[in-house]
């Protein structure tokens, strides 16, 4: 077999094309990651400001004008702090636990459609991919609690992971109504179906599913009022008690990326993603010139504001109370929503 057969012009062409594809994908990934991480950094700033103002105080004000450079100060501090690994901790597992947690949250960013033709990976099982990565995040939580070799961290990790898996079922079932109405698991298809449907947003016909999803999303990301495993007064800092410096930052990053993800999932499935409902476009026709990604970001930030609002307002649930909510209330309600949606669809099909 001489070389001319192996390295033919067509294989070289294919390789070049492949290389260009990979380069474009990498560019998209870098853009999404850079913007995503910037949003995460400013989400922490936004949160401290919002909660501060709700508590009639100012929040961060010192670093930069109105405290705008605060996230960078925090990041730099965490980067340079000493990295303490507690005695007798399992070093390898301790090392990779925060990476598993953060990577599981980050990878979801690849399937989210930010605009009509900007998705890094347009896969047909997009929704299931997000569920799968939520399940993998549990490992990061649990393993970090165990590897720290400390009672508090271990109990915190155990309770946190039990909480996350309990609400995962409710989250999945609440989205089944959306799947039924859109007829697809592809996230871009779901958005387009909302754009074409008569309601404009699935939050209107699926309001039961919407409420269940929002509650489950808050519980999945371990936020108040469901953050007892992290509660400072009870378990120090829960499963990441023993983590210092950048490992802590990785967990923190993972948690906020998970928040962005839940907010994005909510806007995609229930609020219409990058589309605007037809009735809004009829009243303000000039809005159709605004790129869809602007609406997407606005809706995501509205959801963030909701996250911060309830954190500032609602007291924490006791652990047994919110496990009871997840299993005894949310699951039957979500299943009821599924059956109701099915029934309504059948009746409408028979009648029309």
């Amino acid at each position, binding site marked *: 077999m001489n070389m001319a057969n192996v390295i033919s012009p067509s294989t070289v062409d294919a390789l070049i094309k492949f290389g260009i594809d990979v380069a474009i994908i990498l560019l998209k990934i870098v853009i999404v990651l850079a913007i995503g991480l910037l949003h995460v950094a400013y989400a922490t700033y936004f949160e401290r400001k919002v909660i501060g103002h709700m508590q009639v105080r100012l929040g961060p004000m010192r670093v930069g004008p109105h405290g705008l450079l605060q996230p960078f100060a925090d990041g730099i501090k965490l980067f340079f702090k000493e990295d303490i690994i507690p005695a007798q901790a*399992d070093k*390898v*597992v301790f090392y*990779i636990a925060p990476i598993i947690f953060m990577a599981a949250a980050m990878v979801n960013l690849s399937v989210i459609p930010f605009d009509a033709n900007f998705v890094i990976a347009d*896969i*047909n*099982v997009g929704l*299931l*991919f997000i*569920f*799968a990565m*939520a*399940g*993998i995040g*549990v*490992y990061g939580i*649990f*393993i970090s609690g*165990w590897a720290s070799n400390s009672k508090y961290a271990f109990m915190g990790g*155990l309770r946190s*992971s039990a909480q996350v*898996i309990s609400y*995962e079922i409710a989250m999945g079932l609440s989205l089944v109504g959306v799947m039924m109405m859109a007829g*697809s*698991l*592809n996230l871009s298809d779901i958005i387009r179906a909302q754009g074409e449907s008569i309601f404009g947003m699935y939050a209107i016909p699926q309001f039961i599913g919407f409420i269940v999803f929002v509650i489950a999303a808050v519980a999945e990301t371990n936020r108040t009022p469901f953050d007892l495993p992290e509660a400072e007064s009870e378990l120090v800092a829960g499963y990441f008690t023993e983590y210092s410096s950048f490992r802590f930052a990785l967990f923190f990053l993972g948690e906020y990326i998970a928040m962005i993800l839940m907010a994005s999932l909510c806007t995609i499935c229930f609020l219409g993603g990058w589309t605007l409902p037809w009735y809004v476009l009829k009243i303000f026709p000039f809005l159709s010139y605004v790129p869809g990604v602007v609406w997407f970001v606005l809706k995501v930030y509205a959801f963030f504001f909701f996250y911060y609002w309830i954190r500032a307002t609602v007291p924490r649930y006791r652990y047994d109370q919110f496990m009871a909510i997840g299993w005894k209330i949310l699951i039957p309600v979500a299943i009821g929503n599924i059956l109701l949606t099915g029934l309504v669809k059948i009746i409408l099909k028979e009648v029309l």
Partner: protein
Amino acid sequence: MVSIGFFIYFAFAIVVLSLLVVTRKNPVHSVLWMLLLFFHIAGLYLFLNAEFMAAIQVIVYAGGILVLFLFVVLLMNLREELSIGKYTTFGPTGFTFALGLFVAVSMSLSSFIAAPPGKYSIDLIKQETHIKALGKLLYTEFIYPFEVASLILLVAMIGAIVLAKRRLKS
């Protein structure tokens, strides 16, 4: 050509990872290697044009069953077991059994005859997406296995609670 290359990587990795899973002394390390193993199996499903199966593999196996394993492994106090040198006594029995199993598996694999390709070619599934093709068959032609599956799940649920409650009382 490319898919054959990927298949070779997946097959090799799965064998190596399985060996790693069974030979680790620390059970948490075993579970983590198994997690990686499940991702490779999901990758295999992807290359067989079964993306829904790949998603299920990760959601149910890696995200559910393996988490259950992890709970059980971590909630048992395992300090004593980590110092045992050998778990079983190997020797003639173990080896003959393994050899017999290997012979049986290779004989069954070599007598494998591929069925004639049915209606669902790669193009049809790509056009219709794997989930829809699966759904259309599962809830119409294969309704009986579907309902039997629900009974199996019911038994699993009740069984787990009965066993656990008995332990709680004792």
